[in-house]
């Protein structure tokens, strides 16, 4: 990472501004992940509504970041690390926007779930999974701020854990549905929530990969560790 200042200081200010927006967006997304798990477990409809409202601000921030990035490319013709910074800013903000959408979707589903009988243990298990993903997201964003390749590589590895949690939950929900068909609606929602969280983990990994690209100029080419991509059980 090049810590020297540009001769043209306005260039530094522009780069700092757009990166500060990404960090701000990251913070908002982290708390959306956090709160969506709480709203689900605590059946807190107000918190769920709040998450849905906050997602608008996240979306607006993405637009603002894209505009800033386009302006930077047009006016400053960034090169080398500067260019990779701008490119990764665009990608990371797009990823964060998606993660925000997943959190919003969880909030919507938890509103529906609040009116149904509880599936025992599901809220807690999902919250644990969500906490793992939230920590991954936090570390991915920290690795971005610090340009910390080792931390980014670590985030990539941890996605395996999330995949395994998802597969375990998949089995669990399937069991509940087979035991009592009245559980099906709730379990379908819970399964989508689990899938959303699993995707958030993938996205945290995507951010970590952008950090590696930003710092080294190359995307990691080793296949990242993955769990079973599709759980193969039950059925038939």
């Amino acid at each position, binding site marked *: 990472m*090049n810590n*020297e*200042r*540009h*001769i043209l200081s306005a260039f530094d200010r522009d780069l700092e501004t757009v990166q500060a927006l990404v960090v701000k967006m990251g913070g908002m997304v982290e708390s959306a992940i956090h709160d969506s798990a709480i709203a689900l477990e605590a059946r807190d409809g107000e918190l769920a509504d709040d998450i849905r409202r906050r997602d608008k601000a996240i979306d607006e921030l993405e637009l603002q970041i894209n505009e800033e990035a386009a302006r930077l490319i047009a006016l400053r013709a960034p*090169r*080398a690390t500067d*260019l*990779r910074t701008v490119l990764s800013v665009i990608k990371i903000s797009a990823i964060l926007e998606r993660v925000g959408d997943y959190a919003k979707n969880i909030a919507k589903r938890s509103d529906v779930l609040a009116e149904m009988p509880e599936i025992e243990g599901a809220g807690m298990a999902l919250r644990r999974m969500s906490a793992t993903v939230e920590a991954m997201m936090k570390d991915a964003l920290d690795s971005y701020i610090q340009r910390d390749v080792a931390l980014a590589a670590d985030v990539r590895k941890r996605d395996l854990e999330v995949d395994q949690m998802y597969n375990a939950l998949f089995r669990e929900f399937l069991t509940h549905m087979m035991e009592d068909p009245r559980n099906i609606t709730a379990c379908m929602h819970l399964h989508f929530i689990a899938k959303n969280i699993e995707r958030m983990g993938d996205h945290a990994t995507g951010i970590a990969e952008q950090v590696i690209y930003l710092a080294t*100029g190359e995307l990691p080419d080793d296949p990242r560790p993955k769990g079973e991509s599709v759980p193969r059980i039950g059925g038939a």
Partner: protein
Amino acid sequence: MNDMTLLERSVEQTEIKISAQDVQVWYGEKHAIKDVNVDLLDKTVTAFIGPSGCGKSTFLRCLNRMNDTIESCRVGGRIALDGEDIYDRRVDPVQLRARVGMVFQKPNPFPKSIYDNVAYGPRIHGLARNRAELDEIVEKSLRGAALWNEVKDRLGEPGTGLSGGQQQRLCIARAVATQPEVLLMDEPCSALDPIATSQVEELIDQLRAEFSVVIVTHSMQQAARVSQKTAFFHLGNLVEYGNTDDIFTNPRDPRTESYISGRIG
């Protein structure tokens, strides 16, 4: 990612046109170029970039022995054109410069007609047997420099009466007329407006089909736009030499990074 690389940008040439080994240049006591080793490819545009005084123009001028004209200048090491040492005593610098042409920063047409500016080189090198052949060379060169349509009806007028951009293209036509194998360009667009600059850049891209072009430029955007290979010079050293897209997206040396991204280096 490589599959998606634009064909035009890729360097397919592997044939070496000019090979420089351990090149040193001194101006009196000043060691201006230090241990430069580089292979310049045929039919490729190579850009030399670097801050003022880094040695890029000095090195460019070694490639056709323009430094011979400077009293205090000494050149060491070996520079070979198609494998032949150009500093060998048997090499005639005038013949060499017909093979390795040069275009300078400021357009410098001769105080002669447009026609004679272009015909001058072919005449002294005896490239045309008669007037008809000379006419043909002049037309071909002016077409090659994308100037023919603008001047074909006034070939007898003085070259100095053209606009700056036209004058520079006239100088390129003049350089092309001797059918060089390499064209050296020292800041060819620094005195031109953006439109004329684009025209010259378009021309450089076309010239690459026929020979190897080496361009010294202060504009990094120009280097990025026209070249396939870029060499970065700093304090007399060749710091980094590679494919232009690599240099501009992911340079290996921190000094290159500092320079091309506009930081103090």
